[in-house]
C-alpha cells in the first residue's frame, strides 16, 4: 500500500498561509458589507413607517463587531446593547430574522416583541440586549460563570459583552468587572467607545483620563485601539481569546466614530454638539471600515469583479430578506400574552 501520509516538505506553508489570509479577509469583508448593506436598506425604507421601532444605528462601528465576533468563534456567547445591529449580524448573518423582527412579522421568532433594541437569537449564541445602559453586563458575567462551571475553566465557550463608553459611568460596570476578575471568569468586556452617551461627551462624564489605566489595575488583561481596520481588531481579539481562556477577564477599549445621530437614520451635525469637519477629519485619518477592508482585498490580489460579485450576492440576500419581511403578515395580537412565564 502506498503511504498516504503526505511528506511534510510537500506542504507549501506560505501558500496555505496566503490562502487562509485571503479567506479570512474575504469572510471579514462579507460580514462588514452585510451589516452596512442592511443598515443602508433600513435607511432606504424607514420613512415608510412600517418598521415601528427606534433605530440605534451601528454605522461606523462595524469593524469592532465583525473583528471580535469572528475571532471569538461560533461557540462564544454575545451580549449587546440597544445599538446591536452590527453585533447581531456579525454573529448570526440572519437577515431574514433581522428584517422580520423590525417589521414585527409572524415569521420572526421574536414576533416583534423586541424590535431593533432587543434582538435575541440564542440559536446563534446572541443572548440578548439591554436598553438600560450597562444592565446586560452583569448578565454576561453570570453567563460566563455558568460556562466556567459547566464546561471547565479553559472552555472556548467564552462570553463577549459589548457596551458603550456611557456604560462605564454606571456602577454595574464596575461591580461586574470586579466580580469577573475576582472569580477569574472567561469574559471579554468590549467598550465600543464613540465618545458620547447620547449627546453628552466623555470629558464631562469622567473624573479620570484613561480608562485603560484604571482597568489595568484590576486582575485582567487590557487592550485598546482606535483602528477601523477589521483585521487589526480581529488580531487583537484573537490575542484576547488566548488570554481569556486562562481563564482571566479581558477588557478592550475600542474607539470609533458614530456616524449617525444617537437614534434615527440621519446624521445630525446641525444639532451643534459635534461638527461635520470633525467627522471628515476622522474619515480622512481612519478610513471607513468597509472601504478600508475593500481596499485590502484589492491589495491582496482579489479581483474587483470578484468583490463586486460578493457585494451583489449580499445585496440580493438583504433584498430577499426585506422583501420576505414586507410581505409577511404581522404577528398575531395574541402574542402579547405569550411567554410572560415559561
Amino acid at each position, binding site marked *: 500500500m502506498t503511504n498516504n501520509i503526505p511528506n511534510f516538505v510537500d506542504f507549501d506553508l506560505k501558500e496555505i498561509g496566503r490562502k487562509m489570509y485571503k479567506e479570512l479577509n474575504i469572510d471579514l469583508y462579507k460580514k462588514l458589507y452585510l451589516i452596512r448593506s442592511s443598515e443602508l436598506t433600513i435607511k432606504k425604507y424607514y420613512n415608510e413607517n412600517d418598521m415601528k421601532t427606534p433605530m440605534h444605528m451601528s454605522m461606523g462601528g462595524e469593524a469592532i463587531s465583525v473583528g471580535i465576533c469572528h475571532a471569538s468563534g461560533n461557540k462564544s456567547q454575545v451580549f449587546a446593547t440597544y445599538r446591536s445591529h452590527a453585533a447581531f449580524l456579525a454573529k448570526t448573518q440572519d437577515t431574514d430574522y433581522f428584517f422580520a423582527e423590525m417589521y414585527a412579522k409572524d415569521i420572526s421568532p421574536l*414576533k416583534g*416583541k423586541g424590535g431593533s433594541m432587543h434582538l435575541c437569537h440564542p440559536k446563534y449564541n446572541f443572548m440578548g440586549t439591554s436598553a*438600560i445602559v450597562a444592565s446586560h453586563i*452583569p448578565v454576561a458575567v453570570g453567563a460566563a460563570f*455558568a460556562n466556567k462551571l459547566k464546561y471547565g475553566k479553559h472552555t472556548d465557550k467564552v462570553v463577549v459583552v459589548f457596551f458603550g463608553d456611557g456604560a462605564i459611568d454606571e456602577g454595574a460596570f464596575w461591580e461586574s468587572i470586579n466580580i469577573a476578575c475576582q472569580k477569574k471568569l472567561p469574559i471579554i468586556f468590549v467598550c465600543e467607545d464613540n465618545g458620547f452617551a447620547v449627546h453628552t461627551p466623555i470629558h464631562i462624564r469622567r473624573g479620570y483620563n484613561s480608562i485603560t489605566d484604571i482597568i489595568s489595575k484590576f486582575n485582567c488583561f487590557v487592550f485598546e485601539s482606535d483602528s477601523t481596520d477589521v483585521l487589526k481588531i480581529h488580531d487583537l481579539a484573537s490575542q484576547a481569546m488566548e488570554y481569556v481562556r486562562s481563564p482571566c477577564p479581558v477588557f478592550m477599549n475600542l474607539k470609533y466614530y458614530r456616524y449617525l445621530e444617537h437614534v434615527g437614520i440621519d446624521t445630525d451635525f446641525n444639532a451643534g454638539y459635534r461638527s461635520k469637519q470633525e467627522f471628515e477629519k476622522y474619515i480622512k485619518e481612519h478610513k471607513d471600515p468597509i472601504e478600508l477592508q475593500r481596499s485590502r482585498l484589492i491589495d491582496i490580489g482579489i479581483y474587483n469583479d470578484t468583490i463586486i460579485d460578493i457585494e451583489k450576492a449580499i445585496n440580493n440576500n438583504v433584498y430577499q430578506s426585506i422583501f420576505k419581511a414586507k410581505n409577511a403578515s404581522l404577528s398575531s395580537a395574541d402574542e402579547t400574552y*405569550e411567554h*410572560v412565564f*415559561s
Partner: protein
Amino acid sequence: MRKITYCDAIREATVQEMDRDSNVFIYGIDVPDHKGIFGSTLGLQEKFGKDRVFDTPLSEDTMEGFGLGAAINGLRPIHVHMRVDFMLLAFNQLVNMISSYNYSSCGELKVPIVIRGIVGRGWGQGFQHGKTMHSVFAHVPGLKVVLPTTAYDAKGLLISAIRDDNPVIVFEHRWLYWQEEDVPEEPYTIPIGEGNILRKGDDITIVATSWMNVEAAFAANILEKKGISVEIIDPRTIAPFGNNNGNKNNNEKLIIDSVKKTGHCVVADNDWLNCGFSAEVAARVSDKCFNYLEKPVRRIGFANTPCPTARHLENQFYPNAKNIIKDVENILDLGPIDLTGIEFYSYEKKFKGPF
C-alpha cells in the same frame, strides 16, 4: 412525623434540591458565614463546596443580574438577601431585566431563578431593615411572589420555587423562623398559586399575609371565646393571584369562596396599605363577591410612615391581633372585648407554633 422549624425547613429544602439537581447553587452576601442567614444556610458550603455556595461582594444589583445570566445558561440560582431593603438595590435587575427576559426571548431563554428576601422585623430594626415590599414586586408581570407562613409552607414553596422555570421571589418573615411543626422529611411541593385555609370558620373571613397570619390566628382564638367563628385564608402566593390552571385551592378562589360564605372580609397585610396587596384583594372581593358582602372590605396594615426604630414608636407602626379584633368588633357590631392581661406577640414573646 418529626417537628422542625421554619428555618430548618428552608435549609432542608435547599439541601434536598441541591442534592437532587447539580445545577442549583446558592449565593449572596453572608450566605456561607457562621450565622448562615439566621441559620437557613448553615452547613451548605461545607456540604456542596465553594462553587455552589458562595459569598459575594456588596454588589446586589450586579449579583442579581449575575443570577439571570447563570439561569439563562442552564443553572438554577438562589440569591439570598439578608433584608428585603437590600434587595431593593437589585430592583433594576429584577424589574428591568429578570421579569422580561423570557418574554423578550419569546420563551427561548428561561429564567429559573429564586430570590430569597428576609423581612427583618426585630430588635429596633428601623426603616431600612424591616421593609416587606412584596406588593411592589407582585405588581410586575413576569415575577412570581410567594410568602410562606408555616414551616410546612416554607419547605414546600421553596422546593416549588427552585423547580419553577421562572423568577420566584420568596419573602420570609424573620418572626416566623422559630415556629416548629410537623414537616415531612421527604421533598414535596406546594404549587405556586395555591392558597391555604389556615382556619375554618363561618362568621368572617380574614385574608392574611405572612406574619399577619399569626396575629389573625391569635385574634381568632380570642374571638372564638365570644362565639365568633373566624375563617383565615392565607394566599401564600400573591403573584400570580388567580388564574392558576384550575387549581381548586387557587389563592383567589379560596378567598372568594370564603367571602361568599361569610359575607365579611378583613385583609390583614404585612405591609403598607396604599397601593398594596390588600387593595388588590379588596378590589377582587368587591368585583366577585359584590352581592354577598354585607359590609365593605376592611384593610389592616402598617402605619403610613417609615418604620421608626424605638420600640414604643414601632408599636404604633405595626398592627397586631388587637387591630384585627377591633375591626371584627366594628364590622360585626360586637361590644368591645376585654383584652386586659393578654400578652400579645412581640420580639420577646416569639411565635413557636404550630398554627
